[in-house]
Structure formats: structure tokens, C-alpha cells
């Protein structure tokens, strides 16, 4: 009996003590609820270098709510959350990894889910780091995050560089060229001859006619090879911005749809010709990422030409037999002298929103601003200094990179020393969050994990890509345009469906389901039924307004 009492006393005491401990922690550290888009490659968010770094620096406790990895799932989740904007379960801050569309942010903002933050963003006392961004880049950030209703509901990430603008990089099988004694093609016509030679010459030498001429898939990072080739006829951004609309090159002022032009039709004829010759695979229109990588990495190489943004399509590219056969070639010149490549403007992605219902606005703003700090921006992307990256002058001694070689910058200042980005890790949130680093900073970074810079290394393509691709675009491009809610409503069909339909029709024309001559008018009528003229008119009006 006595024993039990003693035990009870001890238990009661310890409970009271933990209560006090809990209270004192709560008093010291305010809790910020962060809804974060997860990444399958982050092993731990609680015990995470970046989480701890933020918590220590800001003196807060972060409480996570996990958002789905998938963009469509995230949109769905946010759309559902927006149905009850007063819910006490809402987080203070959303970090969405650029998964929401402009229209989605505007709609959630006007519905009262997201806080309008422009007053804080323009106040150097509230957001010192954001206000320290150089004026030119700051203008881009403000423009990208200001919605059509004049409010800013989100904090963007902006990390300009030269590589990601032109992901439609063409890779041609150089080993096959050499074997058949051919020259690197520079025009679409030469390419056709090369592909036919590939088809007939059994360049992989296995005695089977299994060579694929042109291969790719409708992926998000430059894998749509037909889009790359179409740009030898007319400029088209693969529908990745403004539904693929562009500025007419005669005045650079009129909005038009490249996919209704005669040049587009010529492009279709060329691609159809390749298809009929059996040197362009219909798999381009059906395959997914898994097929794509499998075909690209066959035991006996079978791909003649593909377009790809990332070398990671060839695992361990530096020693990958398939990749080593490939050579980056410049965009091909079409019969009219056009040699563009889709230009994917690195618009700041909208990363962080603050919940309008939060009672910790000041803390949330401070939290958002922290991401624009120079050091924090580096850690957010590069990981732990000293482990994953280094600024040690001794290590930097004698280092160079592709940008230094082509004269874009004078020296390397930051070395990436670990390959944690490609591994499961708990060093960062994998760059989910707002961020700013200037182009100047980016150019001084070099990844040393595969050894010092070697200009002959086939995977060191940043400099070559800059020289061959960076300038291949019309003088003036449509900026990212923002529709008001009414404008969105008017163009709902077009915004939902037009982009997909253009690609679908392109596939049908090339594979002969639609006839380029006989069905062209029907195609234009289909586009019209999705509201193309209305979309062009609205886009023109919004563009004129934005000038």
C-alpha cells in the first residue's frame, strides 16, 4: 500500500514537472505550423539539417503538416482546404513547391485562404532580405507573384541560370555517324538523310533493323523531341506557357497561335515524312518516363536522335555506354532558315503562401523572409556547408567551370562536394521553399564530385549548350500573362484543354490519323470550338495591359 502511494506521488510529481517543462518550451519558442510539399527523397523532416537551421536561427518550433508529392494531388488538397478558410486546423504557412497554377493561387487568394502579402513585401522593415534583392531581379519576382487582382498571395523562388532555359537539347548518336561515315547534320533535310542511313545501315551492328530514328516522349523537361524539331519551322514553346501562344515575328506585338500557321503545317509535313520513312517512332506520343529511360539505355543502343533536358536520363552518364555514343548537336535549321529551340523562361515559381486565417502573421512573414537570406538560400539548395559544399579558398584554388571557360564569369567561388542531391537525405527539403540567388552567383558554382572541370568531359555541356542554344529564340517573347478571374472564366475550355489538344492533334497529323491537307480546316474548326479566337483576344488584351 505504502509502496503504491509512493509510486503515485512520484508519478504525479513527474507529470507536473513535464507540464512545467512543456510550458517553458512553449513560452520560449513559438510554434509555426508549416504545410510542406514532401519529397520522397527526404528521409526525415524533424531531424533535418535545414529544419534545425531554421528553428535555431528564428527561435521557433516548426510543426509540419505534410502535403502530397504529386502536383495534381496538391492542387486538389488546396482546393478542398479553400472550402473552409476559417478552419482552426489550417497551417500558418504553405510551402507548395510551385505546384499551384497562377489561376489556382488567385482563386484561393480571393477566396480568403491565402493572405495578400504585398504590403509586407514592400516594407523593408518587415522583409529586409526580400527588399535587398537587386532591383532588376526584384522586378521579375514582383511581377511573377502579383496576380491579376493586383494582390500578391505568394512568395516566389528565383534562381536564374543558363542551363534550364533551353531543355530541348538534341542528342544525336555520334558513334553511328562515325561508323557510317556521315557528317553532323545542321539542317532538317540533312537530318532526314542521316536518319535514313541509320535505318538502312544497321549502325549498331546487331544484324537487326531495330534502330529507332527519332525518339522522345511528352515529358516535362525537354523530352518532347517533336517540339524540338518543330522549332526548325516555327517558334513554339511546347505549350508550356500561355497555352503556346507567341508574338507574331513581323511586328513582335500581335499575339498569334503558331500552331495554326503555314509554317506549322510545313513542320507537320516534315515530321510526317520522317514517320512515313519509319525513322520517327510513334512511341513519342505514348511512352512515359519509365519507357523513355529503358529505351535510351538498352544493352544494344537503338536510339538515333532524342531531345532531353537532363543527363540523368542516362544513369551515371559519364560511364554510360549509351550516353557516350551521343553528342549534343545545335538546333537544326529548317528550309526557311528557322533554327529556334523552345525557350522555357525561368519564371519564378510560387513557393510559399501565408494562411489568411493565421494569428501569427508577423512570425510567418519573418519565416518567409528568412528564405531570401543569402546564406539560407545557399543552404536550402546546397545542403550543409563543409559537407555538401565549400567556400574554402584552399579548395577553390585552381578550380574552373564551363562558364568560366566561355567567359561568362571570372572564377569559381562555390564548390559542390557531395552528391546528396541524387540521394535520399535529411540535409534539406530538396529546395522546396522560396529562394533567391543571382545569375552571377549561379555561374560561380561548380560540382566537383566527378573531379575537376575537364573541357573534354562529355557530361560537361553547360558551356556548349550556352553557345549552341541560348540565343536560338525570337527577339521578343510573350511574358507570363495573368488572367483575372473573369478572363479565366471566359476562357475555361481553352485553358483546360487547348494545350493538350494541340499535342494530341500534332500526334494525329504525324501518324496519319488526321490528313495534313484534307483535315486541316477541320483542325482549325476544332481549335475554334475550344475557344482559340477568344483566347487570343484575351491574351492580346492582357499583354497590352502588362506593357
Amino acid at each position, binding site marked *: 500500500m505504502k509502496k503504491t502511494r509512493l509510486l503515485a506521488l512520484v508519478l504525479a510529481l513527474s507529470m507536473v514537472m513535464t507540464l512545467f517543462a512543456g510550458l517553458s518550451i512553449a513560452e520560449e519558442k513559438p510554434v509555426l505550423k508549416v504545410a510542406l510539399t514532401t519529397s520522397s527523397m527526404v528521409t526525415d523532416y524533424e531531424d533535418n539539417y535545414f529544419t534545425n537551421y531554421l528553428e535555431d536561427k528564428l527561435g521557433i518550433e516548426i510543426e509540419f503538416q505534410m502535403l502530397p508529392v504529386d502536383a*495534381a494531388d496538391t*492542387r*486538389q488538397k488546396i*482546393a478542398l482546404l*479553400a*472550402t*473552409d*478558410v476559417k478552419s482552426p486546423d489550417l497551417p500558418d504557412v504553405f510551402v507548395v513547391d510551385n505546384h*499551384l*497554377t*497562377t*489561376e*489556382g493561387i488567385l*482563386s*484561393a487568394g*480571393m*477566396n*480568403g*485562404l491565402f493572405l495578400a502579402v504585398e504590403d509586407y513585401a514592400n516594407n523593408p522593415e518587415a522583409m529586409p532580405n526580400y527588399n535587398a534583392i537587386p532591383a532588376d531581379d526584384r522586378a521579375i519576382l514582383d511581377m511573377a507573384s502579383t496576380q491579376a487582382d493586383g494582390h500578391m498571395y505568394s512568395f516566389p523562388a528565383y534562381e536564374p541560370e543558363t542551363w534550364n532555359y533551353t531543355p530541348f537539347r538534341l542528342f544525336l548518336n555520334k558513334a553511328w555517324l562515325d561508323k557510317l561515315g556521315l557528317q553532323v547534320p545542321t539542317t532538317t533535310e540533312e537530318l532526314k538523310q542521316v536518319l535514313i542511313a541509320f535505318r538502312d545501315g544497321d549502325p549498331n551492328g546487331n*544484324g*537487326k*533493323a*531495330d534502330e*529507332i530514328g527519332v525518339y522522345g516522349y*511528352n515529358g516535362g523537361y525537354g523530352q518532347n523531341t517533336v517540339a524540338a524539331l518543330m522549332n526548325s519551322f516555327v517558334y513554339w514553346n511546347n505549350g508550356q506557357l500561355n497555352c503556346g501562344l507567341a508574338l507574331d515575328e513581323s511586328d513582335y506585338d500581335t499575339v498569334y497561335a503558331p500552331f495554326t500557321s503555314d509554317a506549322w503545317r510545313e513542320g507537320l509535313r516534315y515530321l510526317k515524312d520522317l514517320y512515313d520513312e519509319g525513322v520517327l*517512332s*510513334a*512511341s513519342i*506520343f*505514348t511512352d*512515359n518516363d*519509365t*519507357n523513355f529511360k*529503358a*529505351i535510351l539505355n*538498352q544493352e544494344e543502343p*537503338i536510339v538515333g536522335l532524342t531531345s532531353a533536358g537532363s543527363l540523368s536520363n542516362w544513369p551515371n552518364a559519364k560511364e554510360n555506354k549509351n550516353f557516350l555514343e551521343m553528342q549534343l548537336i545545335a538546333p537544326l535549321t529548317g528550309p526557311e532558315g528557322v533554327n529556334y529551340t523552345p525557350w522555357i523562361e525561368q519564371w519564378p515559381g510560387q513557393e510559399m503562401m501565408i494562411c489568411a486565417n493565421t494569428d501569427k502573421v508577423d512570425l510567418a512573414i519573418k519565416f518567409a523572409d528568412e528564405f531570401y537570406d543569402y546564406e539560407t538560400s545557399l543552404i536550402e539548395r546546397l545542403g550543409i556547408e563543409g559537407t555538401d559544399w565549400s567556400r574554402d579558398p584552399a579548395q577553390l584554388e585552381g578550380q574552373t567551370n564551363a562558364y568560366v571557360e566561355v567567359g561568362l564569369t571570372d572564377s569559381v567561388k562555390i564548390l559542390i562536394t557531395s552528391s546528396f542531391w541524387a540521394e535520399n537525405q535529411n540535409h534539406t527539403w530538396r529546395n522546396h521553399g522560396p529562394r533567391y540567388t543571382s545569375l552571377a552567383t549561379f555561374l560561380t558554382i561548380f560540382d566537383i564530385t566527378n573531379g575537376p572541370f575537364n573541357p573534354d568531359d562529355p557530361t560537361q555541356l553547360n558551356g556548349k549548350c550556352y553557345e549552341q542554344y541560348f540565343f536560338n529564340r525570337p527577339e521578343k517573347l510573350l511574358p507570363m500573362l495573368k488572367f483575372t478571374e473573369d478572363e*479565366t472564366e471566359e476562357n*475555361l*475550355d481553352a*485553358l*483546360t*484543354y487547348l494545350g*493538350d489538344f494541340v*499535342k*494530341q492533334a*500534332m*500526334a*494525329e497529323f504525324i*501518324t496519319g*490519323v488526321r490528313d495534313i491537307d484534307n483535315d486541316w480546316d477541320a483542325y482549325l474548326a*476544332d481549335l475554334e*470550338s*475550344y475557344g482559340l479566337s477568344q483566347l487570343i483576344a484575351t491574351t492580346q488584351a492582357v499583354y497590352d495591359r502588362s506593357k
Partner: protein
Amino acid sequence: MAKKTVVAHSHGNATLGKRILDRWQLYLLLILPLVWLITFCYVPMGGLVLAFKKYTAAKGIWGSPWVGVQNFQKFFNSAKSSIVIQNTLLLSLYQLFISFPIPILFALLLNVLPGVKYKKVIQTVTYIPYFFSTVVMVSLLFQLLDYRIGLYGALYTTLSGGKVAPNVLAQGSNFRHIYVWSGVWQATGYQAIIYIAALSSADQSLHEAAMIDGASRFQRVLHIDIPTILPTASIMLVLAVGNIMNVGYEKTLLMQNNLNLNYSEIISTYTYKVGLASGVPNFSLSTAIGMFNSVINFILLVLANFTSKRLSGNGIF
């Protein structure tokens, strides 16, 4: 036992309340499913009101303005509506005509097979694919049917002496066949179970008598087995028709590509794209399309039930 029957009978004319009170244990058991039904099937039906409103989250369901049938008009005026409705009907009818009789045939065949062990093995093997999730099933399908790296491609190349197989996935019109026949592969074993159970309840004396009368195996199937499962089959048909417009949207969505969209865009995938996946979610339009879908389905269900009652005397209501 006898006493209870008498008690129950004596209350045959009693009030409803009293009759419930008498069997309160049964009604207690009923509460849970009833609550489930009301919460998850009837309450959400109230959301159908969205179809007649211009819904914005800020104003809430009741605060949003009424717009009459504007959302329905929008759907019928949109370029996609006719092809989407057509695809849905064709796909579901095709599916019904194939996947309804096949399990019956399969069950009949299995029933006449000798050897219990052998039957059990077949049953289990055909039953397994049912447990693959849709995502796994579809990626399996794509891997198998790939014309270069898949089983299909490899077999074709081997058998044709090195030629590359035609790309079946790039042929849009193949979509329906692949969809329906892969469904047959996945679900036949599972759907056959109910018929196998019905067949096992066939009166053995009928079979014995038929055998003595010299009936052939086929005649026994025709005159004994089929009449035995006919009531089950007609109810299953009514249920299948009740689901006719609900062609699995997950599977369709996963199987879509640029070359088969003309065949594979159906009402449910369209609803999903307009309502949730698009950058500008439009709940009202989505609800209207979904409601249109359900109304058609309801009409078909009533028709099928009526026909079935007329023809075989069996129906679900």
C-alpha cells in the same frame, strides 16, 4: 422455436413501433449500416445543389449565387461533350457485352471439369489478378504490351525472325480493346465466384435423372446449369447496368495518352480534369456533369430492372 413463431405471428397486425420493439436486437444491428448509408451516400447528395450554383469557396455552398441550368448548358455547349458522352457509352456497353457473359461461360466450364483439386487451382489462379491495384495493373499492362521491351514485342520479334512489332499502344482505336480485355483478365475469376456458388446449389438429382435419360453433357449444361444460374445472372445484369456509366475512371485516366484521347476521354475523367486537376477548379461544372452522368445511369437502371422483371421475374426492386 415454435413459441417464438407464435409470438411473432400474434403481432402480425401490431403497430410498426411495437413490431420494432419486439425485434430490437435486429434493428440495433441495422443502425450501423444505416448510419453509414446516410452519412456517406445520402448527405453528400445535398452537394448536388452545387450543379445549379456558381460556387465559390468564400461564399460557401449556400451563399453562392444560383445560376439555374447554366452549368449544364456549359457542358453541352463545350466542344468535348458529344465525344465524351459517346466514348463513355461505347466503352461501357462494350465492357458490359464482353465482361458480363464471360464469367458465366467460365463458371459453366469450370463446373463440368472433373477433379476438385484441379478446379480449385484454376479458380485461385484466375482469381489472383483481381487483387492487383489499378496502378500496378496498368503499368504491368504497359510493360507487357511495349512493342520493343515488352513481352509482346519480344515474342513478336522472335516469332517473326527479327522484325519490330507494330506499336499497339500508339493505335488509339486499340484503347477500348485493351481496356476491356485486360478487365476480363483481371476480373473474370472474381466475378465467376458467384456463379460457381449458384451452380453448386443445383439439384444433383436433376443431373442424375438427366444422365439416366441419356442427356449429353452439353444438354445438361443447357437444361439444368443455365436455368439454375439464370436468376443470379439477371440480377447481376441489372447491377451491371446500374454501374454502366461508372466505367473505372482511374484505369482510364492512367491509360490515356495523346494518341488515344479521342477514344479514352470519358465523362468521369473529364469531370476530374475540369473539377479538380485543372489549374482553375470548377466544382459546379464538375458536379453538373457528374449529375448528368448519374441521371442517365438511373434511367438505364430502371429500364434494365423493368426488362429483367418482365423477362425472368427477377429484379432488385
